[in-house]
């Protein structure tokens, strides 16, 4: 049972956890536990120095509680939101809403996933994305082309462009957001 659950997607696990399936909830938490620990590490060294034996279970409880009530599109964004909310303002429980840009990205990702092996759909999507890509600025278009299509790594790009990894990542993320926006607004042009 446990083995089968580990093969399920986040979406499926979340829907099962909502139906009081504690095991699915456990698998989901297990899947993200190392990331939760990793992003919590910097807070454990800070001023009040909280006990990880208390903080992590509390975080899990919060996640478990919000899992049953909140709409979750992406598990990683949700976990990060809850974790940041807990450390920034432990008394307040801020519900998680995906941003507008996030929803655009999500929409396109779903479309790509849905197209799957359907050649016609994939062709259509590719043509429209190409059109959107052509309307981007030259810098953004180059960045995306190099990173995604030419398979250049962070290290290559930072060396070529003289940027830090964080900055490069921010630019890439921004460029991808712009592409998504252009794609979604194609009907209005």
């Amino acid at each position, binding site marked *: 049972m446990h083995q089968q659950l580990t093969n399920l997607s986040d979406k499926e696990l979340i829907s099962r956890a909502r139906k009081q399936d504690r*095991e699915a909830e456990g698998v989901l938490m297990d899947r993200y536990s190392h990331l939760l620990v990793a992003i919590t590490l910097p807070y454990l060294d800070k001023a009040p120095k909280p006990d990880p034996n208390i903080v*992590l279970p509390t975080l899990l409880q919060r996640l478990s509680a919000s899992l049953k009530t909140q709409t979750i599109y992406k598990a990683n964004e949700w976990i990060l939101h809850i974790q940041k909310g807990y450390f920034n303002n432990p008394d307040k429980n801020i519900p998680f809403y995906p941003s507008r840009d996030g929803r655009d990205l999500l929409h396109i990702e779903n479309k790509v996933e849905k197209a799957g092996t359907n050649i016609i759909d994939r062709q259509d999507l590719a043509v429209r994305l190409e059109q959107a890509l052509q309307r981007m600025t030259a810098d953004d278009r180059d960045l995306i082309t190099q990173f995604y299509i030419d398979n250049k790594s962070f290290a290559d790009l930072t060396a070529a462009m003289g940027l830090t990894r964080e900055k490069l990542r921010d630019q890439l993320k921004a460029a991808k957001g712009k592409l*998504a926006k252009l794609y979604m607004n194609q009907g209005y042009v």
Partner: protein
Amino acid sequence: MFSSKPNNEKILKVFSGIRCLSKDQLPRYMEGRLTDIEKHLVEQHLADCDLCFGALQALEQEGNEQYQDLTGKLQRFIHDSIQPVSHVHKVAQYTKKEKTKESLLVYFWLIAFLVIGIASVYVLRGHLRNQPPPPPRTLVSAQPAAKDTATPPSGEVTNQPIVTSEQPAPAPGHQTAATPATTTPAAKPAATTANPPATAAPAPPRPTAADSIAKAKAAALKAQQKKHAADSIRKALALQKQQDSLKKEKEKGNDSDNKKPEPQPEPKQEIKEPAPQPKKEAPPAAEPINSDEYLYKAAMVYQQQGNLGEAIDRYKRIAANSSGKYAEMATYQLAICYRSKGQMGKARRLFREVIRMDGFLKNNAQQALDSM
């Protein structure tokens, strides 16, 4: 178009969803121990995922040891807290299901037995409700049968020869002429020796023996109707008169001779009209001897014949002397006599008296009073 397809398809990678980094992928990426393709995929994901990128940065700052330690602890904690709970939950669910099943079965059988019990009681009651009618029917049918069997055979079987020998000739011809001849012999045996079987019920055989069937039928019908009431009464009258006369004889030795003829002619005249049949039936009625009854019946006869004055006299005597059933009946009949005479005030008073007596005629009296 075809040549550009792979290039075109590659652009879809920008928006392909990639899972977050796994527990060991993170350190391996940090140490550069990933293949080119894997590294490229991780970097694609890192460009999107704030969580993974944050984790990577944190790990690079904090070091790997604490990460491994805490991750192992947390995963164990999750396993411990979730799996046993789920197992316990399953067991609880199973036992709960079994319990509800059992309790439902118990309820089912309880309800089933209750329903069966109620149904059986209902059916039984319905059965009992339907049963009572038969017994009354048998009783009702038995009583008349008993009467029929009791009266006719005694008369028919025993008396037929006697009656046919004596009376066939006079009956059709002149009833009035025949009566005086038969009355005296009939009255005498009744008075001296109560001998029912001999003279009991010659009435039925007579009409059958008679020639004219129409006359016989009419006579039989009338006679049968009057028989029960009048005929037996006449004999009672005779008895009573004899008793009276005996008393009078004892009391007044000489006067009895003068008074005797007076009462005797009266009954005889009255008896003459329905005579032929009644006289023969006198003896059976004589069996239960009760002066009140005889008086009452005699009065009834007078009343039926229209001799209200005589009837009222006798009724008054009964009402004054006797008590109980006959007093009440006499009072009631007295009231009816007065009513038929048109003396409504007296009738009302007597009806009220009957009601006051609170006997079995109370309802009748009340009805009569209401209808006046």
